[in-house]
């Protein structure tokens, strides 16, 4: 049996909205200590990794490690029924067959609503993410990051991030023109210069989740775009870099 209660349905709503365009089906790994999710987009260039630790939930009970496969589109439909201030109980019982119940409760009005969503058999590949020390780690306002990505996306599908001691530069170069955004460092980022090219995906979406976004870069390894969730979790996007292929350049 698995039972977890969030104080605000809005949180789960935001998470699902942030990833549902990138990932269609999600296997939620529920264990004693956390509810996790790892999934790739269909083209396998981006990996979504979500962790919601026990501390984030009002109540949390997980008898044994289970994997709950859900379609994010269906989950989103279910969550649309909830008001943002409703509490959200996620419940799965082995005897219930293959469905998960979301219970939204409006405490003030003594109203509860049960929405049951069919589970899916997801044959997912779990990726081992190696420990990696990044040469650049920078934090910036999530809204700022979103605007930058949006601006660059109008010119190009791919985005180049270059970080030096002098600052971090986002470049989007396309047929119709180029957009370059430069930030001078305010505090951290005293590292070597690094450059990463990647596709502007929807990694800039979860602005609503968190105020800050942390970018971790290193040459020729996936970029990490991390949105901390409260103090007990995170939503991370690992984005595969585009690497210049020299033979083709000649």
């Amino acid at each position, binding site marked *: 049996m698995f039972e977890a209660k969030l104080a605000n349905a809005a949180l789960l709503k935001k998470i699902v909205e942030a990833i549902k365009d990138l990932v269609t089906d999600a296997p939620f790994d529920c264990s004693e200590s956390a509810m996790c999710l790892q999934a790739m987009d269909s083209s396998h260039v981006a990996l979504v990794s979500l962790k919601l630790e026990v501390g984030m939930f009002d109540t949390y009970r997980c008898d044994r490690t289970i994997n709950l496969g859900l379609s994010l589109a269906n989950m989103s439909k279910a969550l649309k029924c909830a008001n943002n201030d409703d509490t959200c109980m996620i419940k799965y019982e082995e005897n219930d067959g293959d469905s998960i119940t979301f219970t939204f409760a409006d405490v003030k009005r003594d109203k509860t609503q049960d929405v049951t969503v069919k589970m899916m058999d997801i044959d997912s590949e779990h990726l081992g993410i190696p420990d990696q020390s990044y040469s650049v780690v920078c934090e910036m306002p999530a809204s700022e990051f979103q605007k930058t990505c949006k601006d660059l996306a109008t010119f190009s599908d791919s985005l180049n991030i270059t970080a030096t001691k002098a600052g971090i530069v986002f470049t989007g170069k396309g047929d119709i023109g180029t957009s370059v955004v430069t930030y001078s460092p305010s505090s951290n980022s005293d590292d070597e210069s690094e*450059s990463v090219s990647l596709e502007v995906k929807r990694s800039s979406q979860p602005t609503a989740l968190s105020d800050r976004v942390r970018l971790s870069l290193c040459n020729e390894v996936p970029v990490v775009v991390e949105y901390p969730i409260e103090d007990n979790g995170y939503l991370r996007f690992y984005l595969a*870099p585009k*690497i210049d292929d*020299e033979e083709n*350049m000649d």
Partner: protein
Amino acid sequence: MMRVAAQKRNGRTKKKRSSVVSMQSLSVVDITNENGHTENAVSPPRSKIPSKKGRQAVKDVSNHKITEFFPVRRSSRKTSKQIEEEERDALRDAVLTGGNEKFLDVYKDPLKGRGIRAGRNFEKGDFVVEYKGEMLEYSAAKTLEEKYANDSSIGSYMYFFTYNNKKWCIDATKESPYKGRLINHSMLRPNLRTKVVEFDGKHHLILVAKRNIEIDEELLYDYGDRTAATIAKNPWLINT
């Protein structure tokens, strides 16, 4: 291209210029990383047809998948359902192919006649052999049994059992190469038990190890017949 860009932007804010410089410095870093073809790598953007080259450059940058960086974890863990299915498939194969027949040795006992010894060790719960014969419904079997009773040269090779609330009988009277029919009876110290399994809508009576069995042990199971008349005729049913 870098230079051109730098010139173009010269008139603009200092901030922008610094960004261009940093990009240049970065491209050098990149290139030294990749075999030091500095000139080659930098020259294409210098071309006179920037837009076309630009597009090509985008194409040249190959897409990489995230799985190239993070290995897929191949978990050997299986769900209980999977394990159950696999075990079932293995049992099915073992029963249908009769692969265990070769591990059973026929021997002759002066008192009991033929018997079967284990040709290898079996662990508790292992499938040993199928009791193979003709599957008959109860009424047909009863008629046949009466017929056999008239001929004293015919031994008893009929095994009656109930499956899904229906009575069945396997008639293994006819001599066959299958050794399940030759296994002797023991009520007191059997090492096999019978079990009915169903594959593809057909059911089979199989013998399963009741405990760990050592090589060369005689295989024995309880024939189960406790009717007074049979016992009177065959006292060994309850005293062996």
